[in-house]
C-alpha cells in the first residue's frame, strides 16, 4: 500500500514535465518576462516615458520615501488599501459564506439565486462605478430620493462627497459586485463535502451550529483561504472602482485615494520626465508587499488546515 502511495505521489519526471510545461511556457513568455522587465524599469532613469537615460540604482525608491507627493500620499493611499481589504474581507466572507450555506440547503431555487447574486459581476467595473455614482447622487439619484420620500432625510447623505462615507461606500459597492465569487466557490466546496460527515455528526448529537463549526468550516478552510488571498490582492490593486468614483485624485479630498491611483497619477497623467522610473518603483514596492502578504497568508492557512485536519 505504501508503495502504491509513492508511485501515485511521484510520477516520472517526464510526466510531470508534460503536465506543467504548457502552462509554464505560456506564462513565462507572455506574462513573466514582461512583468520582470517592468519591475526592472524601476532601477533606471527615464526621459519622457520611454527613453532610457541611465542606470539609477535605487534612487527611484529613495524618492518614494523622501519626496513629495509620496511621503504624504503613499501612507494615506496605503491605509485606504488596507481599510478596503479589511472591509471586503469581513463582508465577503461573512455575507458570502452565509449566502452560500443557505443556498446549499435550498433545493430548486439555488440556481436562480446564484445567477442573481452574480449578475453585478457581469457588468464592467468602470460602468458599475459610474452607475452607482448616478444612483447615489444627492441631487438626482433615486436612492436619496427614496430616502427623502420615506421621511428619512437625515439618511440622505452626500455619499461620495464626504470622505467619511465615500470609502465605506466604495467597500460596499466592491462587495456588491464581487459577492458572486465567494458564493459560487463556497457553494462548490460545500457540494463536495460528503453529507455522511454531517449526518455522522448529527447522529452524535451535534446541533446545527456545532456541526457547521466543527465539520463544515474546517473542510472549507482551503477555499476560504483562497478567497481571502484573492481579496487581499484585489484590495491592494483596486483601481477601476476608485477611479470611477473619485477620479485620479481620489476625491473627495483624497478620501478614496489608493496606491494604484497614485501610480496612475505618476505614470501616465503627469508631465514628469522620469515618470516611468518612479512609477515602476512604486509598483515594485506594491508587488513586494502583496507578495509578502500573500505568502504569509498562505502559511497561516496551511497551518490552519493542518491543525484542523
Amino acid at each position, binding site marked *: 500500500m505504501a508503495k502504491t502511495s509513492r508511485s501515485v505521489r511521484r510520477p516520472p519526471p517526464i510526466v510531470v514535465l508534460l503536465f506543467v510545461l504548457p502552462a509554464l511556457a505560456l506564462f513565462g513568455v507572455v506574462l513573466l518576462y514582461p512583468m520582470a522587465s517592468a519591475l526592472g524599469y524601476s532601477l533606471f532613469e527615464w526621459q519622457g516615458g520611454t527613453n532610457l537615460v541611465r542606470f539609477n540604482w535605487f534612487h527611484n525608491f529613495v524618492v518614494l520615501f523622501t519626496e513629495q507627493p509620496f511621503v504624504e500620499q503613499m501612507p494615506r493611499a496605503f491605509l485606504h488599501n488596507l481599510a478596503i481589504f479589511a472591509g471586503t474581507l469581513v463582508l465577503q466572507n461573512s455575507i458570502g459564506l452565509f449566502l452560500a450555506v443557505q443556498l446549499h440547503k435550498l433545493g430548486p431555487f439555488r440556481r436562480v439565486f446564484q445567477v442573481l447574486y452574480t449578475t453585478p459581476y457581469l457588468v464592467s467595473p468602470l460602468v458599475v462605478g459610474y452607475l452607482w455614482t448616478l444612483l447615489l*447622487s444627492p*441631487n438626482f439619484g433615486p436612492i436619496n430620493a427614496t430616502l427623502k420620500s420615506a421621511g428619512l432625510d437625515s439618511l440622505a447623505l452626500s*455619499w461620495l462627497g464626504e470622505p467619511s462615507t465615500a470609502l465605506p461606500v466604495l467597500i460596499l459597492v466592491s462587495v456588491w459586485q464581487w459577492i458572486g465569487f465567494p458564493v459560487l466557490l463556497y457553494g462548490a466546496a460545500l457540494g463536495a463535502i460528503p453529507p455522511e460527515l454531517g449526518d455522522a455528526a448529527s447522529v452524535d448529537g451535534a446541533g446545527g451550529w456545532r456541526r457547521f463549526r466543527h465539520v463544515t468550516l474546517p473542510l472549507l478552510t482551503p477555499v476560504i483561504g483562497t478567497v481571502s488571498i484573492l481579496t487581499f490582492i484585489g484590495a491592494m490593486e483596486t483601481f477601476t472602482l476608485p477611479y470611477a468614483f473619485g477620479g*485620479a485624485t481620489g*476625491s473627495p479630498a483624497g478620501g478614496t485615494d489608493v496606491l494604484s491611483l497614485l501610480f496612475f497619477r505618476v505614470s501616465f497623467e503627469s508631465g514628469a520626465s522620469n515618470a516611468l522610473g518612479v512609477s515602476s518603483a512604486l509598483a515594485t514596492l506594491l508587488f513586494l508587499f502583496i507578495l509578502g502578504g500573500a505568502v504569509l497568508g498562505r502559511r497561516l492557512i496551511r497551518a490552519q488546515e493542518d491543525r484542523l485536519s
Partner: protein
Amino acid sequence: MRLTVWTWSNEAATAFKKGGIIDAFEKAHPGVDVEVVAQLDKNYETLLTTGLAGSGSPDIVALRSYGVLSSFADSGNIVPLDDVVKDWGGFSKAALTGAKRKSDGKLYAVPQGIQTAQVYYNKKVFADLGLAVPKTWDEFVSAAQKIKGSGVAPVVIPGAVAAQISLAAEVIGNARRGAGDFQQAFLGGQKNLTDPDNVAAIGLMEQLKPYLVDNVTSVTLDEAVTLFATGKAAMFPSGTWQVTTFANLGAKVDYGTFDVPANADWPSKSVTVSYADGGWALAKRSAHPTEAAELLNWLAGTEFANLYANAMGTIPARDGVTLKNPVLAEMYQRYLSTPSAYLGAAYLRYGTPSGTDLMGEQVQKIWLGKATPPAAAQSIQTGIDAWFKPGDFKSE
C-alpha cells in the same frame, strides 16, 4: 494611402467627420485618405505611450498642451515641427507656449485651439430677480445672495472633480491673485503661492461656499452641466466647451457669459482666463512623413482653423477665424482684449504632484471644513516644490 490621426476627444473626431473637415482636406489632396480615431480620453496618455513606441504608429496625434506635450517630446517619439510647418505667423503667443518643449523651447505641435474659462449665467433667473451682470466681486456676491433667497442654487461647480475645481478656482481667483503680474513674479521666483494675494484668491472659494449647490463635493461634471442647463443652478464657472455640451444635452437654457468682475482694491482688473487646449504632433514612426507634414501644414492654416473652431465650439489658436456662434464670438472678443493664462495648466503640470490636482484637493478640504486658505496655499506650494523651479520657463 491613408493617414491616421489620434485624438483623445470623441467630440473632435465627430467634428472631423461630420463638420466636413476630412472632406475638405481630401478634396484638396487627392490620393490621401484621413482617418481620425478617437481613443479613450481617460487612458489616452497610456495609449499614446505604447502607440508611439512601436509599429502600427499613428501618423499624427493630438497631445494635451504644456507638461504632457513636453514629456512626450522628451521621449523622442514625436518630432520638432519648427521647420516642418512653414508658417507659424498666425498663431497667438499663448497658443504657441502650450506647444513647446520646456527644455529647448522648440515647437512640437500645431496648436488646436484655446479654451477660455468664464462664468455662465442663466439669463432668465437673472431677469426674474432684476439682476444685472455684476460689475464688481461684491456685486457678484450680493447677486448670489439674492439668487439663494429665491430658492435656486446660485453657483454650481463640479466639486467631485479636481481638475474642474481647479479651473473654477482660476476663473474666480485669477484677477484677485494679480493675473499676469503675479504670474511673472511667480515664474521669476519673487513670489510663491503663499503670497497674501494668492491666499486671498483661494479665500474666494471659501467665501463662495454658502452659495454653492448642496453637497458640492459630490457633484460630477455631467451633473453640474445638468444642474445649470435645467435651471437648478444660476451660475457655472467653466470652459468654452460647455457651449457644445449644453447644446448636446438638449435642454433649453437661455444663458450668457461674463468674466468674474474685480473689486477696485484688487491687484488686477477683470481678466479672461485662458489656456492652450492641445495640439497636433507628428509621430516619429509615421510611415508617411511627407503626407503627414502636408496635413500638418493644412491643420496650421486658416481653412482648417475656421472649420474646426466652429464645428468644435472652441476659441481659435490663430488669427483669420470668424466664429459663427454669438456666445463664442463674445468670449473670443474678451479673450483678445484681456487674456490671462491659467497658471495651473500652463506651469504647474510638468511633474507630480500636479498643481491643479493639489488645488482641487485643497479646495475640497476647504469646503469640507478641513483646511483654511493659508494652509491650502502652503500645502500646494509644498507639493509643487518637489519639482517646480522658478526660472525654468525662461522663454516667458
